[in-house]
């Protein structure tokens, strides 16, 4: 058996499908594809499907990755690509199928392109030394965290913001950054779209 890494895009209406639903979506896609899927043993056999990094509800992405375990060491990635392409909908476009290189745990940063109603002098927000925000902890509590160090880089455009944020174990959701901006500028900021466009390891190398 081997794992194939499927790179795909999640766009349009599919941004309303949650990460948890995606597991079920890919289980069915795998079955329909006709690929020799590997199943777990035991009571409730299911495929082994692992996503690189969860994507929040409402976000689109042009660089998604999911690993699927195949029951054939020599299964061709080109064959997998062809089969997946024939069963995946337009809004879940398969881009390429490769052998996994990095471990998903190595993901450390994510790039987002945000189209929004950007306030004048947006620079001033990013020039702050510290930005304290309340973040939910994994145990369901709330703690105050300085999110500035988790903003690795930013680029300001016309009605556009490009952010590279910490991802993985130390994760910063762009919604939290926008909320911080709302507080800083003391006004509503309407967001039109958030697209995750790339994933990186801690050396800033593309996740592959």
């Amino acid at each position, binding site marked *: 058996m081997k794992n194939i890494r499927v790179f795909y895009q999640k766009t*349009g*209406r*599919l941004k*309303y*499908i*949650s990460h948890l*639903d995606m597991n*079920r*979506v890919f*289980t*069915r*896609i*795998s*079955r*329909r594809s006709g690929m020799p899927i590997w*199943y777990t043993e035991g*009571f*409730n*056999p*299911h495929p082994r499907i692992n996503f690189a990094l969860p994507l929040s*509800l*409402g976000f689109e992405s042009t660089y998604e990755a999911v690993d699927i375990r195949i029951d054939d060491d020599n299964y061709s990635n080109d064959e997998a690509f062809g089969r997946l392409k024939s*069963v995946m*909908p337009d*809004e879940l476009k398969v881009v390429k199928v490769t052998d996994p290189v990095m471990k998903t745990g190595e993901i450390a940063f994510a790039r987002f392109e945000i189209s929004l109603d950007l306030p004048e002098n947006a620079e001033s927000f990013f020039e702050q030394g510290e930005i304290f925000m309340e973040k939910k902890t994994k145990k369901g509590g709330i703690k105050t965290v300085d999110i500035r160090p988790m903003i690795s880089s930013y680029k300001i455009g016309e009605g556009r913001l490009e952010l590279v944020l910490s991802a993985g174990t130390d994760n910063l959701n762009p919604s939290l950054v926008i909320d911080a901006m709302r507080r800083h500028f003391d006004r509503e900021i309407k967001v039109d779209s958030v697209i995750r466009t790339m994933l990186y390891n801690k050396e800033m190398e593309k996740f592959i």
Partner: protein
Amino acid sequence: MLEDILLKVQKPGRYVGGEQGSVVKNPDEVDVRFAFCFPDSYEIGMSHIGMKILYSTINSLEWAWCERVFAPWEDMEAQMRENNVKLYALESHTPLCDFDIIGFTLQYELSYTNILNMLELGGVPVLAKDRKGLKNIVCAGGPCTYNPEPLCDFVDIFFIGEGEELDNELLELYREHKKRGSDKETFLRAAAKIEGVYVPSLYDVTYNDDGTVAAYTPKDNAPATIRKRIVSNLDKAPYPEQFVVPYVEAVFDRVSVELFRGCIRGCRFCQAGYIYRPVREKSAAVVDRQAKALCASTGYDEISLLSLSSSDYTELNDLLGSMLSWTEDKRINLALPSLRIDNFSDELLEKIASVRKSGLTFAAEAGTQRLRDAINKNITEEEILSSCKTAFEGGYTAVKLYFMMGLPTETMEDIEGIANLGQKIVDLYYSLPNKPKGKGVTVSISCATFVPKPFTPFEFEPQDTADTILKKQQHLIDSVKTRKIQLSWHDPATSLLEAVLARGDRRVGKVIYEAWKRGCKFDSWGEYFRFDRWEEAFKACRLDPAFYANRRREYDEVNPWDHIDIGVTKSFFVREDKLAHQSTTTPNCRQKCAGCGATVFGEGLCCEKH
């Protein structure tokens, strides 16, 4: 507009469409647009096999387009009202008011207020008389249409019976009339000529002083009785090769294939067994083929074989044998609900357990042999215990049993019988030498309140009052002496309302309207059901729910559904009700024909015998 709302509500994926298997056509190339509305949430409605079949049969017509509409959840409805977004169909996001024909499926009575709510939310006048012209014809199909009367103020056309052929015939007629520019009345008069179509506006109802129905009088050449439609040959009947596969979680989300329609057993409380007669089976080869095709096109990992009594399916063993030969390899689970407790064999258990164990549920229905005989549930205590024994020895440690309380001729002794039976099953478990090691047993007893339904022998019977039910529930609790038995039941108020709507006449429509105006919707959901508002609605209409639910009806009383003809005759139901009061059973159709009247269709099992 919609985009702004979607991220403010729970599970927005329910409102966007674009699912795999959904059908998108060019509206300019289509003559008739049909909105198939399921009056409950997306998660519930997407499990409905009828919608899947008709979605496929209607869309097979080049010139017609069938789209789906579900009831939005409360948060979405609030957002839609606030932002002036009308209820729309998922495929095209077209608002309901732009559809030619709006069809509802009536699966359960407690969904009725949702119908009104969806019409209003869709910009469609709720009352039939307020809808002029050919646009927005509202029709309805499904099991509750067998007593359609409470919905006559709102629905223009009822489809009585199976819709595979009937619906398309109506659509053809509509297309013709739309081309001609007919008015609504002309179209409805023509529609009434199609067998299985009931147009309520062509019937006048008169009442006696005591409130019972005096007569239904047809006008404009409408037929005196409306005979239901059936599909003669299930093997040849259209069946989808593709299902719409939801992205979000839905109930019973799997491939479903019917085994047969109708039922041979004749249990006296069960409406489905009679309204779907004559019994017609699908051949095993066809079931196998259809299941295989659907698994391949959808990617589902579970198949459910559907019928009213699956262990009665003639070719069951052969079918399971051939299906297991390919489902096991593909890790596809076979679910076989609706098994009868009296023919649950080791062989069968082995077959269904081989991929994945699901829970086991049996419908015992009554706690004593005397009462089981009265309701014609022909199973003995020995058979119940034997099936449980088979299950326990096969590794199951939990069984669920369905009962009803409030059945005709029932006494407190019968209630105690439920507890006694549960206790016997628990004792049986512990007496077995080869029961599952180290595990205790759970016997779940679910006790519903009996609701008398039209087109059953018990259509004449009164429902127990809420007081009586509460007393019986308490008596049951007091009779259970072990913690291994878990009891559950329904709130009697919902059962009372169900009973009124099930056997209501046209006047009940006003109550539904009043209840809806007072905010009633999603009545089948515990968190939404507001009985106080329904009580106010009854008072406002000066109608007494007890008149419909708790009154015994005379055999010669005209019932509001007597002008519907299902083949099975009223005289048969009278005979059966009398036998019930003598605790006498009737054999099943395969043992001996009871002369119910379904032979009039000349199809299915009845033909094999005659």
